[in-house]
């Protein structure tokens, strides 16, 4: 008797939902076992995560505050992943976006809020796009692995930002904290409904609808998907891979750059070291869990945002390291990756009888 796997011709749509949900549940069970072995009560921990993320209107709004940058950055990486380009550098692109926006506020302050914010967004988009575009050019021209180059550019961007906030831009009245002076009011994105959710929300909703249309309904999106799924066919069809790599990387970096700008302009009101809670990396999970579907990524970002809020609650409430929730994030990815097997393949028991399950 033997287990055999057969490739499914087509996978029913409900399988996707069921398998994903089952994978996430299993990840929480496995994470619970891990926490239990570490002497942490998983029920208390999970209850704390749930309550801190969904317990009240304020908690929900805080979850949304985390979900905003996550969703925006996940749209950025989704664009690359659709073409099977592994942009791991959204973190750095967001840092560069935030840095450039802060530079604009510092050196070109304006009286008019709309003009100020537009210029900041434009600068952040161009700078973030440039940061990713460099990796895109290296990939297109010399086939330098974009995984490595975007990753190294992350570290460079982080150090660059640290250089400015520890050095020339440090607010003298910050008591030594690595942060700039608060932005002028014109450079602040308005916040909505008395919460910390900022206007970037509208931008995000429009962007996700736009991305969905662009990827699923236009010729350009079609070409990108073909290049991602079958590079050879795309080449024979005369699609220009090199140009698309650079363009897709630029757009991706631009979106990530704007996400970084929104974070400092809408939420923190100044540039500070470590302003991003590793959103660039977490967004990769969001993109993957949402099957590269822009509208779905909003929902997934909200749920992962809940996990981030929960991580802070665990840190404050139970004295656990902030990184602890990364265990859950890692496990969710493991189980979802494993689960994908079950909607690509049908698993059968093979009893070894002749003419049964022995076909090639």
């Amino acid at each position, binding site marked *: 008797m033997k287990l055999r*796997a*057969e*490739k499914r011709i087509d996978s029913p749509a409900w399988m996707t939902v069921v398998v994903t949900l089952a994978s996430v549940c299993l990840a929480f069970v496995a994470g619970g076992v*891990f*926490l239990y072995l*570490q002497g*942490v009560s998983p029920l208390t921990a999970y209850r704390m995560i749930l309550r801190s993320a969904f317990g009240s209107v304020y908690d929900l709004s805080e979850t949304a505050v985390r979900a905003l940058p996550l969703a925006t950055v996940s749209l950025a990486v989704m664009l690359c992943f659709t073409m099977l380009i*592994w942009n*791991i550098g959204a973190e750095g692109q967001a840092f560069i976006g935030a840095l450039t926006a802060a530079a604009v506020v510092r050196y070109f302050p304006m009286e008019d809020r709309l003009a100020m914010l537009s210029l900041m967004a434009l600068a952040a988009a161009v700078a973030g796009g440039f940061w990713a575009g460099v990796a895109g050019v*290296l990939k297109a021209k*010399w*086939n*330098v*692995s974009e*995984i*490595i*180059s975007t*990753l*190294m*550019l992350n*570290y*460079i961007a982080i*150090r*660059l930002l*640290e*250089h400015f906030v*520890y*050095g020339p831009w440090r607010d003298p009245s910050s008591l030594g904290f690595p942060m700039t002076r608060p932005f002028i009011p014109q450079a602040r994105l308005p916040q909505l409904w008395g919460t910390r959710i900022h206007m970037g929300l509208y931008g995000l909703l429009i962007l996700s609808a736009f991305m969905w249309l662009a990827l699923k309904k236009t010729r350009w999106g079609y070409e990108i998907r073909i290049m991602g799924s079958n590079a050879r066919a795309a080449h024979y069809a005369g699609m220009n891979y090199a140009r698309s790599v650079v363009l897709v990387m630029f757009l991706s970096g631009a979106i990530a750059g704007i996400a970084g700008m929104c974070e400092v302009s809408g939420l923190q009101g100044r540039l500070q070291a470590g302003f991003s809670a590793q959103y660039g*990396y977490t967004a*990769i*999970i969001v993109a*993957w869990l949402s099957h590269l579907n822009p509208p779905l990524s909003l929902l997934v970002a909200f749920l992962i945002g809940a996990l981030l809020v929960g991580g802070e609650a665990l840190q404050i409430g139970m*004295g*656990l*390291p*902030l*990184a*602890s*929730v*990364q*265990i*859950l*994030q*890692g*496990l969710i*990815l*493991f189980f979802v*990756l*494993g689960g*994908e*097997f079950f909607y*690509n393949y049908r698993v059968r028991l093979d009893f070894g009888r002749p003419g049964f399950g022995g076909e*090639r």
Partner: protein
Amino acid sequence: METLVSILAAAVRSGTPILYATLGEILTEKCGVMNLGLEGIMLMGAFSGFFVSLSTGNPWLGLAAAFGVGMCLGLIHAFISVSLGGNQVVCGLAMTMFGGGASALMGRGCIGMTIRGIDGFSIPWFSELPLVGRVFFSQDVMVYASYALVVVLYCFFTATRPGMNLRAVGENPKAADAMGLPVARIRYLYTVLGAGLVALGGAYISVIYNRFWAESMTAGRGWIAVAMVIFAVWNPFQAALGAYLFGGVEAFQLRLQAAGTSVPTPLLMMLPYVMTILVLLFISIGKGRRVSLSAPAALGAPFHREERE
């Protein structure tokens, strides 16, 4: 001269964890599996090595434990990428997150503790050689072991039957399968062994180099090792060169910092990363064909016996 020797010796020491991780990843990639989770595996290795050294008082047990933990994590990666055919890039990221989170959680009680570690010793005769002696032969056992590992791996890949089988599986799994090689089993074996070496690199940091534990103490070395594999074009000797070069930049930058130069620290800390990109770029421009020729042809592609392309 004295300064130069001490910087070079420090370069070898701080390059050693990267060397172990790079060699482990070369072993894994040669059989066609790409493991991007080095950072997480190194952290788990660093934690388990430190924890076992601390609780048993025996650093050797710590290193062994790290190797074992690394192999377990390699087993997870092998299961997902070989048996289930999952996406290896995403699986590596998952490993990075899991390893970072799990080591932070499990190590929360170890912060602030120190261990005795393993002291170095000079190799008689060799250590008296001018320059080379002080730089390469006045180190610790793990550094010497890494020299041996470089040579052993090189010979293994080029001159032994199992080594050639391993390469066959990485280059053309279908042909290897037709030859009667157990593709999946070979990939499992070297993914697991490779991850063990990676974890050993992490343990070197906590047990021998720093002798304490701190959250995310590998500080991106795992990712550097991923880049080093390409820099080394999958050759163990070039891996050693790359690792020491990187270690050299690190050591040099620490010296500059200590000497109080006017260059701000964050800019100095950028150096290794800038260097990695430049080196990758030069290699790709100069030896563009060689890189693509040296990369295992089936790297990152799952293999299922019953399917045709």
